[in-house]
Protein backbone atom coordinates (compact mmCIF):
# COMPACT_ATOMS: atom_id res chain seq x y z
CA UNK A 1 0.00 0.00 0.00
CA UNK A 2 1.35 3.42 -0.93
CA UNK A 3 0.82 6.33 1.43
CA UNK A 4 1.01 10.05 0.66
CA UNK A 5 1.47 12.58 3.45
CA UNK A 6 0.44 16.09 2.41
CA UNK A 7 2.71 18.89 3.60
CA UNK A 8 1.02 22.26 4.05
CA UNK A 9 2.90 25.38 5.15
CA UNK A 10 2.74 24.98 8.92
CA UNK A 11 2.24 21.21 9.05
CA UNK A 12 4.41 19.86 11.88
CA UNK A 13 3.39 16.21 12.23
CA UNK A 14 4.22 15.28 8.64
CA UNK A 15 7.56 13.71 9.64
CA UNK A 16 5.92 11.84 12.52
CA UNK A 17 3.33 10.41 10.13
CA UNK A 18 5.98 9.45 7.58
CA UNK A 19 8.10 7.82 10.32
CA UNK A 20 5.22 5.81 11.73
CA UNK A 21 4.06 4.58 8.34
CA UNK A 22 7.54 3.89 6.97
CA UNK A 23 9.43 2.58 10.01
CA UNK A 24 6.71 1.23 12.27
CA UNK A 25 4.38 -0.12 9.57
CA UNK A 26 7.01 -0.76 6.87
CA UNK A 27 5.04 0.91 4.11
CA UNK A 28 5.96 2.98 1.07
CA UNK A 29 5.41 6.66 1.86
CA UNK A 30 5.88 9.85 -0.14
CA UNK A 31 5.42 13.44 0.93
CA UNK A 32 3.08 15.50 -1.22
CA UNK A 33 3.65 19.26 -1.35
CA UNK A 34 0.43 21.23 -1.01
CA UNK A 35 1.06 23.12 -4.27
CA UNK A 36 1.36 19.92 -6.29
CA UNK A 37 -1.48 18.44 -8.30
CA UNK A 38 -0.35 14.82 -8.41
CA UNK A 39 -1.16 12.24 -5.73
CA UNK A 40 1.56 9.99 -7.25
CA UNK A 41 -0.67 6.95 -7.26
CA UNK A 42 -1.04 6.86 -3.47
CA UNK A 43 -3.76 4.62 -2.08
CA UNK A 44 -4.19 6.47 1.21
CA UNK A 45 -3.65 10.19 1.68
CA UNK A 46 -2.77 11.48 5.14
CA UNK A 47 -3.50 15.08 6.11
CA UNK A 48 -1.16 15.50 9.07
CA UNK A 49 -1.34 17.59 12.20
CA UNK A 50 0.11 21.04 12.66
CA UNK A 51 -0.90 24.63 12.21
CA UNK A 52 -1.35 24.91 8.48
CA UNK A 53 -1.41 28.56 7.41
CA UNK A 54 -0.86 29.51 11.04
CA UNK A 55 -4.46 28.51 11.86
CA UNK A 56 -5.39 31.91 10.43
CA UNK A 57 -9.11 32.63 10.07
CA UNK A 58 -10.08 29.16 11.33
CA UNK A 59 -8.01 25.99 11.68
CA UNK A 60 -7.94 24.29 8.30
CA UNK A 61 -9.98 26.95 6.51
CA UNK A 62 -7.25 28.21 4.18
CA UNK A 63 -5.55 24.84 3.62
CA UNK A 64 -8.80 23.56 2.25
CA UNK A 65 -8.12 25.77 -0.80
CA UNK A 66 -4.52 24.57 -1.29
CA UNK A 67 -4.04 23.26 -4.86
CA UNK A 68 -3.55 19.61 -3.88
CA UNK A 69 -6.87 19.59 -2.02
CA UNK A 70 -8.67 19.49 -5.39
CA UNK A 71 -7.01 16.15 -6.07
CA UNK A 72 -7.55 14.94 -2.50
CA UNK A 73 -11.27 15.76 -2.78
CA UNK A 74 -11.48 13.98 -6.17
CA UNK A 75 -9.63 10.99 -4.68
CA UNK A 76 -12.11 10.88 -1.77
CA UNK A 77 -15.12 11.22 -4.09
CA UNK A 78 -13.82 8.26 -6.10
CA UNK A 79 -13.77 6.22 -2.90
CA UNK A 80 -10.05 6.65 -2.21
CA UNK A 81 -8.87 6.56 1.41
CA UNK A 82 -8.05 9.77 3.28
CA UNK A 83 -7.00 10.03 6.93
CA UNK A 84 -6.95 13.42 8.64
CA UNK A 85 -5.23 13.67 12.02
CA UNK A 86 -5.72 16.72 14.25
CA UNK A 87 -5.22 19.71 11.92
CA UNK A 88 -5.86 17.20 9.12
CA UNK A 89 -9.29 16.46 10.62
CA UNK A 90 -9.97 20.20 10.83
CA UNK A 91 -9.09 20.49 7.13
CA UNK A 92 -11.39 17.55 6.27
CA UNK A 93 -14.28 19.30 8.04
CA UNK A 94 -13.57 22.62 6.31
CA UNK A 95 -13.47 20.76 2.98
CA UNK A 96 -16.80 19.12 3.90
CA UNK A 97 -15.33 15.66 3.38
CA UNK A 98 -16.42 14.89 6.94
CA UNK A 99 -19.43 16.55 8.61
CA UNK A 100 -19.19 19.06 11.46
CA UNK A 101 -16.50 21.37 12.72
CA UNK A 102 -13.83 21.54 15.46
CA UNK A 103 -14.40 24.43 17.86
CA UNK A 104 -12.17 25.98 20.49
CA UNK A 105 -11.76 23.61 23.47
CA UNK A 106 -14.38 24.39 26.11
CA UNK A 107 -11.58 25.10 28.63
CA UNK A 108 -9.92 27.56 26.20
CA UNK A 109 -6.53 25.88 26.67
CA UNK A 110 -4.23 24.06 24.30
CA UNK A 111 -4.23 20.49 25.66
CA UNK A 112 -1.22 18.21 25.13
CA UNK A 113 -1.50 14.91 27.00
CA UNK A 114 -2.48 11.29 26.72
CA UNK A 115 -6.19 10.52 26.60
CA UNK A 116 -8.06 7.25 26.19
CA UNK A 117 -10.20 6.33 23.24
CA UNK A 118 -12.77 3.67 22.64
CA UNK A 119 -13.29 2.32 19.14
CA UNK A 120 -17.04 2.37 18.49
CA UNK A 121 -17.34 0.15 15.45
CA UNK A 122 -15.45 -2.35 13.34
CA UNK A 123 -17.36 -1.16 10.30
CA UNK A 124 -14.58 1.05 8.90
CA UNK A 125 -11.12 0.30 7.57
CA UNK A 126 -9.41 2.33 10.31
CA UNK A 127 -11.15 0.44 13.09
CA UNK A 128 -11.75 -2.87 11.28
CA UNK A 129 -9.83 -5.14 13.63
CA UNK A 130 -9.78 -3.10 16.82
CA UNK A 131 -10.89 -4.56 20.13
CA UNK A 132 -14.10 -2.67 20.97
CA UNK A 133 -13.82 -3.46 24.67
CA UNK A 134 -10.48 -1.90 25.50
CA UNK A 135 -9.30 1.69 25.84
CA UNK A 136 -6.49 2.91 23.58
CA UNK A 137 -4.07 5.42 25.10
CA UNK A 138 -3.33 8.07 22.48
CA UNK A 139 -1.99 11.63 22.85
CA UNK A 140 -3.93 14.73 21.89
CA UNK A 141 -2.37 18.14 21.18
CA UNK A 142 -4.88 20.76 20.15
CA UNK A 143 -6.66 23.97 21.08
CA UNK A 144 -9.53 23.50 18.63
CA UNK A 145 -10.79 19.98 19.13
CA UNK A 146 -14.33 20.37 20.40
CA UNK A 147 -16.32 18.41 17.85
CA UNK A 148 -19.62 20.01 16.97
CA UNK A 149 -22.32 19.41 14.41
CA UNK A 150 -26.03 20.13 14.25
CA UNK A 151 -28.63 17.76 15.68
CA UNK A 152 -29.65 16.24 12.31
CA UNK A 153 -26.05 15.62 11.35
CA UNK A 154 -25.30 14.07 14.76
CA UNK A 155 -28.25 11.73 14.37
CA UNK A 156 -26.99 10.68 10.94
CA UNK A 157 -23.50 10.05 12.34
CA UNK A 158 -24.92 7.80 15.03
CA UNK A 159 -27.52 6.11 12.83
CA UNK A 160 -24.94 5.35 10.12
CA UNK A 161 -22.33 4.10 12.57
CA UNK A 162 -19.94 6.86 11.50
CA UNK A 163 -18.51 7.60 14.96
CA UNK A 164 -15.17 5.75 15.06
CA UNK A 165 -13.73 6.89 18.40
CA UNK A 166 -15.04 8.43 21.61
CA UNK A 167 -13.04 9.77 24.54
CA UNK A 168 -13.26 7.42 27.52
CA UNK A 169 -11.51 6.76 30.80
CA UNK A 170 -8.72 4.21 31.12
CA UNK A 171 -11.26 1.45 31.72
CA UNK A 172 -13.08 2.24 28.51
CA UNK A 173 -16.08 3.95 30.11
CA UNK A 174 -17.34 6.98 28.22
CA UNK A 175 -17.84 9.73 30.79
CA UNK A 176 -18.05 13.53 30.82
CA UNK A 177 -14.90 13.61 32.95
CA UNK A 178 -12.99 11.75 30.23
CA UNK A 179 -13.99 14.32 27.60
CA UNK A 180 -10.95 16.62 27.35
CA UNK A 181 -12.38 19.39 25.18
CA UNK A 182 -16.17 19.39 25.35
CA UNK A 183 -16.71 17.41 22.15
CA UNK A 184 -20.31 16.52 21.41
CA UNK A 185 -21.03 13.00 22.72
CA UNK A 186 -17.28 12.55 23.45
CA UNK A 187 -16.62 12.26 19.72
CA UNK A 188 -12.90 11.96 18.95
CA UNK A 189 -13.02 10.54 15.45
CA UNK A 190 -15.52 9.95 12.65
CA UNK A 191 -15.75 8.75 9.07
CA UNK A 192 -17.78 10.03 6.13
CA UNK A 193 -20.89 8.27 4.82
CA UNK A 194 -18.81 6.48 2.19
CA UNK A 195 -16.59 5.16 5.01
CA UNK A 196 -13.39 5.98 3.09
CA UNK A 197 -12.54 9.32 4.77
CA UNK A 198 -11.43 9.22 8.42
CA UNK A 199 -10.89 12.18 10.73
CA UNK A 200 -9.61 12.08 14.30
CA UNK A 201 -8.18 14.63 16.74
CA UNK A 202 -5.86 12.26 18.68
CA UNK A 203 -2.43 11.40 17.23
CA UNK A 204 -1.91 7.65 16.67
CA UNK A 205 1.34 8.42 14.81
CA UNK A 206 2.79 9.77 18.06
CA UNK A 207 2.22 6.44 19.80
CA UNK A 208 3.47 3.95 17.22
CA UNK A 209 7.08 3.31 18.22
CA UNK A 210 8.41 1.19 21.11
CA UNK A 211 10.90 3.93 21.98
CA UNK A 212 7.96 6.17 22.88
CA UNK A 213 6.71 3.69 25.46
CA UNK A 214 3.29 3.41 23.87
CA UNK A 215 2.33 1.56 20.71
CA UNK A 216 -1.46 1.81 20.96
CA UNK A 217 -1.33 4.18 17.99
CA UNK A 218 0.34 1.52 15.88
CA UNK A 219 -2.58 -0.82 16.64
CA UNK A 220 -4.88 1.78 15.11
CA UNK A 221 -2.73 2.77 12.11
CA UNK A 222 -2.00 -0.81 11.07
CA UNK A 223 -5.73 -1.47 10.63
CA UNK A 224 -5.56 0.30 7.28
CA UNK A 225 -3.30 -2.52 6.03
CA UNK A 226 -6.34 -4.81 6.24
CA UNK A 227 -7.46 -3.47 2.87
CA UNK A 228 -6.65 -5.37 -0.29
CA UNK A 229 -5.39 -3.01 -2.94
Amino acid at each position, binding site marked *: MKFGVVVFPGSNCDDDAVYALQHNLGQEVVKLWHKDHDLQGCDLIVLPGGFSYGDY*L*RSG*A*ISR*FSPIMNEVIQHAKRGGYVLGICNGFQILC*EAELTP*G*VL*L*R*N*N*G*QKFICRNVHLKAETNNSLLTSGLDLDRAFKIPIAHAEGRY*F*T*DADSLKRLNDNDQVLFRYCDENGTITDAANPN*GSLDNIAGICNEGRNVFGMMPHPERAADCALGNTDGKLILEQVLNVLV
Partner: protein
Amino acid sequence: MEFIADINIMPMKEILDPQGKAVKLGLHNLGIDQVADVRIGKHITLRLEAADAAEAEGKVKTACEKLLANLIMEEFTFEVRPA
Protein backbone atom coordinates in the same frame (compact mmCIF):
# COMPACT_ATOMS: atom_id res chain seq x y z
CA MET B 1 -15.26 51.10 -9.06
CA GLU B 2 -13.80 50.27 -5.70
CA PHE B 3 -15.89 49.22 -2.71
CA ILE B 4 -15.18 48.59 0.94
CA ALA B 5 -16.93 45.76 2.73
CA ASP B 6 -17.24 45.64 6.52
CA ILE B 7 -17.93 42.09 7.58
CA ASN B 8 -18.91 40.83 11.02
CA ILE B 9 -18.63 37.14 11.81
CA MET B 10 -20.07 35.85 15.08
CA PRO B 11 -20.28 32.41 16.66
CA MET B 12 -23.84 31.08 16.50
CA LYS B 13 -25.93 31.85 19.55
CA GLU B 14 -26.49 28.22 20.52
CA ILE B 15 -22.76 27.44 20.52
CA LEU B 16 -20.72 27.93 23.69
CA ASP B 17 -18.15 30.72 23.22
CA PRO B 18 -15.49 29.95 25.86
CA GLN B 19 -13.48 33.05 24.92
CA GLY B 20 -16.48 35.28 25.53
CA LYS B 21 -17.15 33.49 28.81
CA ALA B 22 -13.57 34.11 30.00
CA VAL B 23 -13.75 37.78 29.02
CA LYS B 24 -17.05 38.15 30.88
CA LEU B 25 -15.32 36.84 33.99
CA GLY B 26 -12.55 39.41 33.46
CA LEU B 27 -15.09 42.20 33.15
CA HIS B 28 -16.74 41.10 36.37
CA ASN B 29 -13.33 41.07 38.08
CA LEU B 30 -12.83 44.59 36.77
CA GLY B 31 -15.97 45.58 38.64
CA ILE B 32 -18.32 45.80 35.65
CA ASP B 33 -20.51 43.02 36.92
CA GLN B 34 -23.57 44.29 35.09
CA VAL B 35 -22.26 42.53 31.97
CA ALA B 36 -24.64 39.65 31.34
CA ASP B 37 -23.10 38.14 28.22
CA VAL B 38 -20.00 38.50 26.04
CA ARG B 39 -19.57 36.94 22.64
CA ILE B 40 -16.47 37.36 20.54
CA GLY B 41 -16.34 37.23 16.77
CA LYS B 42 -14.31 38.68 13.94
CA HIS B 43 -14.46 41.91 12.00
CA ILE B 44 -13.02 41.78 8.49
CA THR B 45 -12.70 44.69 6.04
CA LEU B 46 -12.13 44.09 2.35
CA ARG B 47 -11.44 46.44 -0.57
CA LEU B 48 -12.63 45.08 -3.87
CA GLU B 49 -13.35 46.11 -7.46
CA ALA B 50 -16.86 45.66 -8.81
CA ALA B 51 -19.05 47.27 -11.49
CA ASP B 52 -21.68 48.25 -8.95
CA ALA B 53 -22.78 47.71 -5.36
CA ALA B 54 -24.90 44.69 -6.22
CA GLU B 55 -21.95 42.90 -7.80
CA ALA B 56 -19.73 43.79 -4.83
CA GLU B 57 -22.33 42.44 -2.41
CA GLY B 58 -22.58 39.21 -4.39
CA LYS B 59 -18.81 38.71 -4.25
CA VAL B 60 -18.64 39.47 -0.53
CA LYS B 61 -21.49 37.05 0.17
CA THR B 62 -19.69 34.29 -1.73
CA ALA B 63 -16.45 35.08 0.15
CA CYS B 64 -18.27 34.81 3.47
CA GLU B 65 -20.07 31.59 2.60
CA LYS B 66 -17.08 29.81 1.06
CA LEU B 67 -14.18 30.92 3.22
CA LEU B 68 -14.55 33.78 5.71
CA ALA B 69 -17.28 32.14 7.81
CA ASN B 70 -18.04 28.51 8.58
CA LEU B 71 -21.82 28.30 8.51
CA ILE B 72 -21.88 25.31 10.85
CA MET B 73 -20.55 27.47 13.68
CA GLU B 74 -20.79 31.12 12.59
CA GLU B 75 -23.18 33.74 11.24
CA PHE B 76 -22.13 36.72 9.18
CA THR B 77 -23.45 40.17 8.32
CA PHE B 78 -21.83 42.79 6.11
CA GLU B 79 -22.18 46.26 4.64
CA VAL B 80 -20.72 47.39 1.34
CA ARG B 81 -19.98 51.06 0.59
CA PRO B 82 -18.05 52.90 -2.14
CA ALA B 83 -14.37 53.35 -1.24
